[in-house]
């Protein structure tokens, strides 16, 4: 009788401990892990042999695990987000992620051997943090690259990238605001459709 109780207690403790391990990853650990995965991929010789489309698909797989495109889209549109209906919002998120991919794929693939150092993690507010990192370029310049992350049900996802102090969300927000000031949400979607054809 006693042994069984002890047995069950141990099982109970294990069950509690395991999930805690999984959810323990901090924001910094999450993004650092993914960045290092992309970096190793970009640096590996067989990756370089693959056709561009395959390369992009592989990187996309890793990026999608840590980037929250919906959150990014919502912040880049600001008030404009509420002007879009559900179907338009969904399409916007898809088109926007395609646009970003098209814009940055070449720059990512141009990576050679730059080192990436991670700094500290600062809390912005509950559930939001900024993780500091820096890219050491081939001519030894340090480019600060920070990730702003949000906690979505235990998982840390990136919603903004700050390079040299400039926010990606702010950049696109200004452009989308200008478009929405003169055109309808449907026009905005058309602009994105044309850019991602």
């Amino acid at each position, binding site marked *: 009788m006693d042994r069984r109780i002890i047995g069950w207690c141990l099982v109970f403790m294990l069950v509690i401990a395991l999930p805690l391990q999984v959810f323990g990853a901090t924001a910094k650990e999450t993004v650092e892990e993914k960045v290092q995965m992309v970096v190793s991929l970009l640096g590996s010789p067989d990756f370089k042999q693959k056709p561009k489309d395959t390369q992009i698909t592989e990187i996309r797989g890793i990026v999608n695990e840590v980037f929250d495109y919906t959150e990014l889209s919502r912040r880049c549109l600001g008030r404009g987000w509420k002007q879009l209906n559900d179907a338009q919002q969904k399409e916007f998120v898809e088109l926007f992620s395609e646009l970003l991919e098209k814009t940055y794929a070449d720059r990512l693939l141009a990576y050679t051997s730059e080192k990436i150092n991670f700094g500290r993690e600062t809390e912005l507010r509950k559930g939001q943090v900024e993780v500091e990192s820096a890219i050491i370029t081939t001519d030894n310049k340090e480019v600060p690259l920070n990730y702003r992350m949000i906690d979505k049900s235990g998982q840390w996802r990136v919603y903004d990238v700050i390079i040299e102090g*400039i926010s990606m969300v702010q950049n696109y927000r200004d*452009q989308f605001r200008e478009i929405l000031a003169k055109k309808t949400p449907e026009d905005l979607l058309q602009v994105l459709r044309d850019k991602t054809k």
Partner: protein
Amino acid sequence: MKKYTKETVVGIFVVAGLICVGYMTVKLGKVGFVGDKSYTLYAGFSTVTGLREGNPVNMLGLEVGRVAGFRMDQEKQQAVVTLRIDKGIEVYDDAIASIKTEGLIGDRYVNIDAGGGGDLLADGDTITDTQSPTDIMDLVSKYAFGDVGDDKK
């Protein structure tokens, strides 16, 4: 009799002049009762070089408030700025506050992009997404990131 009248006239002019000056001071210098027509927001920056108390807070190019004070947060290594914003100006929790310069060598000001995809900020809340002052900001922004209206593939 004449002496009295001259002095009285001069006195009236002086008083009138003082009233005019006082009126102009209030109107132009905005020395007024700002008290209950504004609310307070905070924003933390990694540096606030050049920003002074009394500098304006702008949104979409219009002045919507003033910088009311500074405080250092040593734990987060940030300079927290107290912003007094006009009541009625809506700022959301995804707002981005940045420190910019009027023209090339003008005064610094705090620019707020109100956001809108989240919840409204109330009196005493903090704007968490901020950009510290940078030089040639717009150029670098365009260079570092993509242009939606670009024709290049």
